[in-house]
């Protein structure tokens, strides 16, 4: 029982990341009809927004301390962050400590801008082209983006810790009356799950309860008719692209303490997220979220030793096996709608 509960918890945070990326992918596909393979790169850029803000806050000036020596035996240069000098040690230190959550505010305008530039600069030229062309161009864009990040940040993962207040873990099992020290869950993963729930809720509310959202939903259902009513649907769809980029970007920011960001993390997530979208049903937002969590949890269960001892290597293929079964039994995915990608 403890094992199942623990793997369920484990699956939730991974599933949260899948759901957030898949949500953005589905939004873009549903509105613009574009299969965006560069979406994983947006998640990665989000994580590097956290790295960048952390580095900006750590920008330091050097003072020579004749008492200490550096590795070459010269007087050591002591680095003091500007923020600590400007705002006092305590506040400056707190700013640096809270770099990751603060990076969400930092990342939103950047990610929206990245989304706009991507959509207006490149992807809009491919709206009327076949899906294969869209996949090729966005895949190429993803590779360009990750090489740019590698050029500036290097190839090794970069440690980006959570604030001190959220370091460590809590004994979830003891709270539920199980043996202590068996079901341990890190605070930051709980924060990530709650964050994902809030973002998913906000996106759904936005689409459900605002006029803007209503128009977008109408456009997703019948773009031509909405256009004929005199509404500039293209502009709204561009904004949705920016919004999808912001969702994936903030998912990347918050994931940085869980997985030290590296340049290829986007690609690692992207393929799985496409499976998530297909399993959930192309164009279905609730389907993407449900499939994200479902596959995250299944992946977690399949890496249990008990399961692996019966089916070795199952943890590597479980997602694809489930995808095959679902697509065989429900060709449109869990919540797919008729007519999407079927013309």
């Amino acid at each position, binding site marked *: 029982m403890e094992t199942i509960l*623990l*793997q369920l918890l484990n699956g939730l945070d991974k599933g949260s990341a899948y759901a957030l990326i898949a949500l953005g992918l589905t939004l873009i596909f549903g509105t613009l009809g574009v299969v965006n393979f560069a979406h994983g790169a947006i998640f990665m850029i989000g994580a590097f927004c956290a790295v960048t803000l952390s580095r900006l806050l750590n920008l330091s000036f050097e003072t020579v301390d004749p008492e200490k020596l550096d590795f070459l035996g010269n007087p050591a240069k002591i680095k003091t962050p500007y923020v600590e000098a400007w705002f006092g040690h305590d506040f400056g230190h707190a700013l640096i400590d809270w770099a990751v959550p603060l990076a969400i505010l930092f990342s939103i305008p950047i990610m929206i801008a990245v989304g706009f530039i991507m959509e207006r600069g490149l992807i809009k030229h491919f709206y009327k082209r076949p899906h294969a062309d869209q996949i090729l161009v966005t895949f190429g864009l993803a590779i360009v983006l990750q090489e740019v990040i590698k050029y500036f940040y290097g*190839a090794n993962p970069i440690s980006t810790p959570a604030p001190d207040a959220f370091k460590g873990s809590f004994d979830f099992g003891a709270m539920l009356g199980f043996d202590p020290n068996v079901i341990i869950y890190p605070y930051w993963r709980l924060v990530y799950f709650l964050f994902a729930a809030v973002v998913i809720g906000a996106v759904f509310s936005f689409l459900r309860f605002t006029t803007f959202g209503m128009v977008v939903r109408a456009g997703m259902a019948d773009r031509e008719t909405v256009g004929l009513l005199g509404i500039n649907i293209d502009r709204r769809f561009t904004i949705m692209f920016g919004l999808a980029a912001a969702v994936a970007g903030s998912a990347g920011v918050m994931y940085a303490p*869980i997985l030290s960001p590296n340049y290829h993390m986007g690609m690692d997530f992207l393929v799985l997220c496409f499976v998530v979208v297909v399993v959930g049903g192309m164009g279905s937002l609730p389907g993407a979220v449900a499939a994200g969590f479902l596959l995250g949890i299944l992946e*977690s269960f399949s890496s249990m030793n008990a399961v692996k001892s019966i089916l070795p290597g199952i943890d590597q293929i479980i997602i694809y096996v489930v995808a095959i079964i679902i697509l065989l039994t429900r060709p449109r995915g869990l919540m797919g709608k008729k007519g999407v990608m079927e013309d």
Partner: protein
Amino acid sequence: MSKTDLTRRGVLRTGAVAGAGLALPTIFTSGAHAFTNEPMGGTVTLGFNVPQSGAYADEGADELRAYQLAVEHLNGEGDGGMLNTFSSKTLEGNGILGKKVEFVTGDTQTKSDAARASAKSMIEKDGAVMITGGSSSGVAVAVQGLCQEAGVIFMSGLTHSNDTTGKDKKANGFRHFFNAYMSGAALAPVLAARYGADRKAYHLTADYTWGWTQEESIAAATEALGWETVNKVRTPLGAGDFSSYITPVLQTDADVLILNHYGGDMVNSLTNAVQFGLREKMVNGKQFEIVVPLFSRLMARGAGENIKGILGSTNWHWSLTDEGSKAFVKSFGTKYGFPPSQAAHTCYVQTLLYADAVARAGSFNPCAVVEALEGFEFDGLGNGKTLYRAEDHQCFKDVLVVRGKENPTSEFDLLEIVEITPAAQVTYPADHPMFAGGALGDCNAG
């Protein structure tokens, strides 16, 4: 109407002339090149095959810096670095055998096929007489095999699998870096002394040649001191989030987690293990401990604070105070502004050792170089007295047991040396079962 005079004598004469003409180039070439890529002009070309893209690109960049420094020193530029402290005094800073050292580089991408292709290109197109580098055992084994076939020397870079000088050893290949067996032999006594002899270990292992040999080596060394191995779990390369492999550890009675991971996998699995509170956990009345048998400072940087207090082993560290290490750190630090990594060190040393062997042999012929390196004893290159054992082409030298530093004084000051394990303690017989299954064979000069 034409008439042809076909006589027996005429055919024979024409045939003899044509045959001689066809054979002529072969006669010349076979006489001119006694071995693959024999340097003919005033220069000699070395091939530096390092990961310039992919997950180990940062290590590759540091290796390349070290190679460039070695070339400078061999050509008599700069301050000479370890040439001043090297016990062999054959090298005079005038290139190798008077030929100026030039180099070409290739990108292994940390993929065996890409590494072989780039090595092949450097040998066939650029005329490299020696190939060196790499940051993965899979790559080292693949390129070593290629160099053996091509008839050039391979001086491996960072490769830690027992197989490189075990079942996959080759006469043309040489390894200065230590191996998984040595890590186990050096680490186990320190682990037993600090954590006690009654411990239960749980292994998470990268699922490829290096991971397997390290798991085998560490398990054997710790079991010999009384530890019990509770479980060995293989994890796929680049798993990303290791939480689903870490959490099952909580449900066993293991009190030590051994992470046979390197690079990004090490950073992620260690970070996950710390996040799941393993280091604060008490099991069997003992403090839970994590061990990372192969440490790298470049990788440690990615793990940030999580490496504090964690024990591991390393081939070399810039904080060593012997004259060789100091000279190398000074040269490297002055040129690049930061201290060298262990990968940089082993690559620099390998280049010097190759050049010295050529100088002592008086020839670039791979078979002469093999003979000069086999059984060669040297000192002054940062690891104390070292032997290049003839039987398996493995260097035997002191091994460093290190620990993540609690209070680093700079961004480079991440590891502290706990113990310098003497070479005798990590030396094993050439026919040790962990290294069985292969043969050096004969050297190949092409």
